[in-house]
């Protein structure tokens, strides 16, 4: 099984090398599609293996942690890997189906697989500095993807994205420097031991620095501004995969470091405050927009608030709920942007004032949109409901009524915003610009992810069980340390 974990990195990176070398588009496509499929299979295999037999540790190069770098595939990582791999594959099929992407940009597949490699490494690494490297891989790939085919407007948007990203990277390095200065290690398991010996005030301060640094990537309040300005400018599949994955990697890093390195034993009021503000400001931002992709971009932010809220309770139930919510969001957010892409692809615009009646002209797009939108709003029986109910119950168990009330209120506003898209773009007399029927491949790719989101909803129980075990692992730092610092191959 350790070999499979190694493969998870070799597959996308090998695909990067191959797609750079292969001269024919059809070969590059094949390699990329095979690689993403293999990543998905390997991720699911790791998930089942890990859930049954406990975390898999790979000491890269054969050197034991903390000298070498450890890859740690525990339940949380494996869950994130699996759902991300599914989203990556779905979006890749969509991108190939849309045809313009990899024709106009010969290196599209290389960069896409680089992004995949960065995401995989971020989930797997048990080393703080390697996490930095993983972020850089992922972000550099995203810089390239977002500037691809960029006109003046996109270049401007990209600058905001790139500059904020690089500033965050600099601050991440400061955090690593501080933590190494205080402890002399960058291995996460080792750090969880040594940080306990550090002065509590300083530890708390460093914890908050990391929270905020990852918070920039995760787009929490008040660090999210870059997101709605930049995401909507990219081509549909790129925005979709950004929306589905990138901010969630930030949330993953927050949850991983806060539970392992800076654990709390009671609900954190400041974190819950940030969560509440993120939800509300995000959803209000969505209401103010008039363009599908921009509306959805603000919803990314709003939904991040729910995940942070789950963390803020610092209970097994809360973190399990957050994990379920992330899993659901990865899929649903990707789908929503793909549907937005389908609308744009058909009409050439995503502005609600300029497109209407998609339901009548291309009902299949509406059929894909509806379950995803209802899921986003947290309505049953869709996947969002499972996560939201779990969060609500966890919140009441922790006695944090206010933030739960805020989250429910934000749900109503989310519903409002979804009906705005539905009523504006899908209902009404079809506009004349609805001319291009969506390609079958694009519909299938989106449909596959919609089906996955339905499955996530229906399989709420097994998912919640795994998430609960994962949350249990996260809150008992001892098991992580024991696995990394003693065993391994």
């Amino acid at each position, binding site marked *: 099984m350790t070999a499979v974990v190694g493969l998870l990195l070799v597959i996308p990176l090998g695909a990067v090398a191959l797609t750079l070398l292969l001269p024919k588009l059809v070969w590059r496509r094949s390699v990329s599609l095979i690689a993403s499929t293999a990543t998905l299979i390997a991720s699911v295999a790791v998930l089942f293996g890990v859930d049954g037999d406990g975390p898999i540790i790979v000491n890269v190069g054969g050197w034991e942690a903390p000298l070498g770098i450890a890859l740690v595939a525990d339940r949380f990582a494996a869950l994130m890997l699996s759902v991300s791999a599914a989203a990556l594959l779905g979006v890749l099929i969509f991108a190939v189906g849309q045809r313009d992407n990899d024709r106009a940009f010969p290196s599209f597949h290389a960069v896409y697989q680089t992004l995949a490699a960065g995401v995989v490494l971020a989930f797997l690494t048990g080393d703080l*500095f390697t996490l*930095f*490297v993983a972020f*850089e891989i992922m972000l*550099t790939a995203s*810089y*390239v993807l977002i*500037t691809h085919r*960029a*006109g*003046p*407007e996109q*270049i*401007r*948007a*990209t*600058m*905001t994205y*790139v*500059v904020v990203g*690089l*500033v965050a*990277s*600099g601050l991440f*390095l*400061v955090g*690593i*420097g*501080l933590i*190494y*200065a205080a402890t*002399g290690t*960058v291995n996460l398991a080792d750090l969880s031991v040594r940080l306990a010996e550090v002065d509590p005030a300083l530890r708390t301060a460093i914890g908050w620095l990391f929270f905020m640094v990852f918070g920039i990537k995760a787009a929490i309040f008040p660090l999210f501004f870059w997101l*709605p*300005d930049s995401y909507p400018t990219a081509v549909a599949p790129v925005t979709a995969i950004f929306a589905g994955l990138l901010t969630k990697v930030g949330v993953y890093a927050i949850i991983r470091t806060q539970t392992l390195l800076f654990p709390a034993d009671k609900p954190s009021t400041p974190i819950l405050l940030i969560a509440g503000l993120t939800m509300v400001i995000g959803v209000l931002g969505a209401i*103010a*927009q008039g*363009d599908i992709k*921009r509306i959805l971009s603000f919803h990314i932010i709003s939904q991040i608030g729910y995940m942070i809220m789950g963390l803020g309770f610092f209970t097994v139930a809360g973190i399990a709920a957050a994990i379920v919510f992330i899993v659901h969001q990865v899929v649903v957010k990707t789908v929503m942007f793909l549907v937005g892409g389908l609308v744009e692809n058909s009409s050439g615009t995503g502005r609600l004032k300029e497109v209407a009646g998609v339901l009548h002209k291309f009902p299949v797009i509406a059929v894909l949109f509806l379950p995803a939108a209802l899921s986003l709003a947290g309505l049953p029986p869709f996947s969002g409901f499972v996560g939201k109910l779990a969060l609500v119950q966890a919140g009441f168990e922790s006695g944090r009524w206010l933030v739960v009330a805020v989250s429910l209120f934000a749900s109503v506003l989310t519903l409002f915003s979804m009906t705005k898209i539905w009523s504006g773009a899908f209902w009404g007399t079809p506009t004349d610009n609805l001319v291009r029927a969506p390609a079958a491949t694009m519909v299938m790719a989106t449909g596959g992810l919609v089906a996955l989101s339905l499955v996530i909803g229906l399989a709420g129980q097994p998912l919640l069980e795994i998430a609960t075990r994962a949350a249990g692992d996260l809150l008992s730092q001892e098991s992580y340390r024991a696995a990394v610092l003693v065993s391994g191959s």
Partner: protein
Amino acid sequence: MSPVLAITAGALFAAGTYLIMQRLLTRIVIGLGLIGHGANLLLLGSGGPPGAAPFTDQAGQAMSDPLPQALVLTAIVITFGTTAFLMALAYRSHALTLSDAVEDDQEDRRISEANRRSAA
């Protein structure tokens, strides 16, 4: 970490921060470069007091901590890559708009200004 090193790193951060909070991408690139230098200095200093260069044949002497050096090296390389990309971006921006200034987001401005009008 020696106070001198810490303050130098801080000064580099301050200068870099000042430079990035404006619009011209060339200045921003320089600012980011300074921030990168500051971070690298901090990382290097986190290894403790200076010593001899870390080679195995210098056993016996007090040796600098090699790990932060390796980390800094990786960070320098990564910064090199992103800087190259940023320069291309500035170049591209200039070719498209005859300026490397980062303009405000138009959609955001539209909403802000609609507000201002309705408030007025």
